[in-house]
């Protein structure tokens, strides 16, 4: 063996022993195939969500409706038809008819002689990318204004379901992050106080926390959400729902924080800090919390999908977000009607994205949990 390889081996060992906590977690995380795939999917969905206004061809609100294509079927761009092929994808024009044959329901008949070509980077409605950069270029669309492209079809008001789905992903990410943030802060304060001081204060806080945890959260949230006045704006409702989600999410995390603090607060380094005259908040913040940051991050990732699902459920029954805001729950509000179930199944397309989003979060959360646990290798 040459001296060079021995040196590099030593360097490997060296880097292993001096690796920071996050480097170790990343190294273990990389080994899990399922979690890595899920992480890829997750990043993809998050990017889609953030870039939603630029990726979606139309405005997701009523302003971007297509008057001539209500409850329209999805249009899939194609390259070939009976009139030959083209390199640029196109869709066919449609003619709407209704008669006694179709029960007087509007039915679209594709007209294969008219072609509308798909163009990229077209100019369309104006929007602010990341909320600050004004733009009006959309990734794709149709040339001209007389026809619109609906990849996932349209709903009963003629709103483009594809655009709505992308915006809904962003809404879910926002509301999930906000809810997680609120529950995180609450959990840190309550769990921190309970765990650091211990004793009688701890018992009282734990008893109340346990009692609150036995109340089924969704019925409780429903009763709180029902009190939100109907005249509130959609932004106010949005923050209200996020706060509610945060309020029901904290007990699990608070318990974890408390249990950890109870074991850590008797360690020597805490005593040392106390003898130096450090205040309680300072010790909690600077000495105790960093000792289990990785666990907190894992818990936050795991609780995220439940926030998203709760919001979806609430909006679905009409107690969460309302129409101008797009979220999966809002989009699914009308699908239980027999008419939709029988004739307009494309209303369900967004569900696929959300199951993917939630699955990705669950897998990444599990992978992170295994990676953050230093004994996970020994167990297996």
């Amino acid at each position, binding site marked *: 063996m040459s001296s060079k390889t021995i040196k590099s081996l030593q360097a490997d060992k060296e880097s292993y022993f001096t690796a920071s906590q996050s480097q170790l977690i990343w190294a273990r995380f990389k080994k899990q195939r399922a979690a890595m795939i899920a992480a890829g999917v997750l990043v993809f969905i998050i990017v889609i969500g953030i870039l939603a206004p630029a990726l979606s061809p139309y405005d997701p609100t009523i302003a971007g409706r297509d008057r001539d294509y209500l409850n329209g079927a999805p249009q899939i761009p194609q390259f070939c038809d009976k009139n030959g092929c083209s390199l640029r994808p196109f869709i066919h024009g449609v003619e709407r008819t209704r008669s006694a044959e179709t029960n007087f329901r509007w039915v679209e008949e594709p007209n294969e002689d008219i072609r509308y070509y798909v163009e990229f980077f077209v100019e369309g409605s104006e929007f602010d990318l990341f909320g600050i950069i004004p733009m009006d270029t959309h990734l794709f669309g149709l040339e001209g204004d007389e026809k619109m492209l609906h990849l996932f079809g349209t709903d009963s008001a003629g709103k483009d379901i594809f655009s709505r789905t992308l915006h809904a992903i962003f809404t879910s990410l926002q509301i999930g992050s906000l809810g997680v943030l609120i529950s995180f802060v609450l959990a840190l304060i309550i769990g921190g106080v309970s765990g650091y001081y211990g004793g009688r204060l701890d018992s009282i806080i734990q008893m109340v926390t346990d009692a609150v945890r036995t109340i*089924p959260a969704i*019925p409780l949230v429903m*009763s709180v959400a029902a*009190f939100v006045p109907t005249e509130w704006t959609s932004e106010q409702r949005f923050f209200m729902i996020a706060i509610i989600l945060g309020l029901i999410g904290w007990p699990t995390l608070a318990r974890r924080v408390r249990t950890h603090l109870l074991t850590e607060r008797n360690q020597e380094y805490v005593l040392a800090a106390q003898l130096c005259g450090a205040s309680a908040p300072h010790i909690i913040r600077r000495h105790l919390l960093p000792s289990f940051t990785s666990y907190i991050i894992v818990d936050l990732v795991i609780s995220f999908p439940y926030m998203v699902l709760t919001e979806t459920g609430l909006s679905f029954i009409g107690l969460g977000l309302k129409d101008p805001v797009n979220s999966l729950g809002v989009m699914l509000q009308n699908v239980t009607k*027999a008419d939709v179930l029988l004739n307009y199944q494309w209303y369900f397309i967004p569900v696929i994205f959300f199951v993917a989003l939630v*699955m990705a979060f669950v897998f990444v959360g599990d992978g992170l949990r295994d990676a953050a646990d230093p004994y996970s290798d020994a167990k297996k």
Partner: protein
Amino acid sequence: MLQFGRFALMRAAMAFVTLLIVSFVVFSLMEMVPGDCAERYLSYKQTQGVAISMADIQSERVRLGLDRPFITRWSTWVMGAFQGDFGDSCILRVNIADLLGTKFWISLAIAISSLVLAYSIAIPVGIIAASSRNAVLNNSLRIVSYLGLAMPNFLLALMIMLVATVYFGETLTGLFSAEYRDAAWSWAKFVDLLKHAWLPILILGWSATAFALQTVRALMSDEIGKLYVTAAKARGLYGAKLLWRYPARHALGPIVNSLGFDLNRVFNELPIVALILTLSEAGSLLIDALAKSNDQQLAGAIIFLLTASIVTLNFLTDILLAIMDPRIRKSILR
């Protein structure tokens, strides 16, 4: 025996205190709603053409006892609630206990059946999964569990509705056929209920199964590696007998303990599933009470009843565990 009695008594006291705290939270929430019963009654009278003044509202408040301090009203409400009397709903103007009646028991029966279904699948399958080294079996079970977690029940209910309507032309909704809806209870009505209730039970059991499967598998994998199992193996035990008599007994303890939280989860999903399948039980009554009429008395009563059944179940499982496992009743009493 005396020791056990003390343990049971202490647990009962703890359950009672929990219920008191819960009732306080629920009652405070009910009070937070803008507008009280006096205003509701009188605004109804106003629609009938009677002129109403502030003094009228005030005297109505006195008549209903709404002018008493918060704590007094709360204690009256709690006393009634523990006896199953929740007063009248001031929007529907009927006694809440009469209104809920069998609806609550049907909801509870559906929720508990779905838990029974979940565990009767999860326990055997989880044990097999933990003890076998078959990668295909383990991975497919893992994917099923994750799907169960990621696909919320209401989406599953929607999908089943979609498939049922498109391919079978049936809607599968409701709890009773039309002819039994208002009929008195009879054997025929009960059979009819069973014919309709399997779908909500299945849907609610779906994610509970996924959850339970993961727990059973994790607990069993932990126990199977322990020395006492190896020792039992060395004595010549094998197969199902080994699994049931040694690791399973230890692994099932925490599961019995978590039943209360499982019931909590099922209750969380019940109202939304009830809405989709248009069931007429307590869950959908809650949605009616909240989404349509803002009926805080009814909502408070339902939430209290749901929580009370969870607390009761927790109490029962604690007692059951103590009977099964002497370590637990000793640890509490120390």
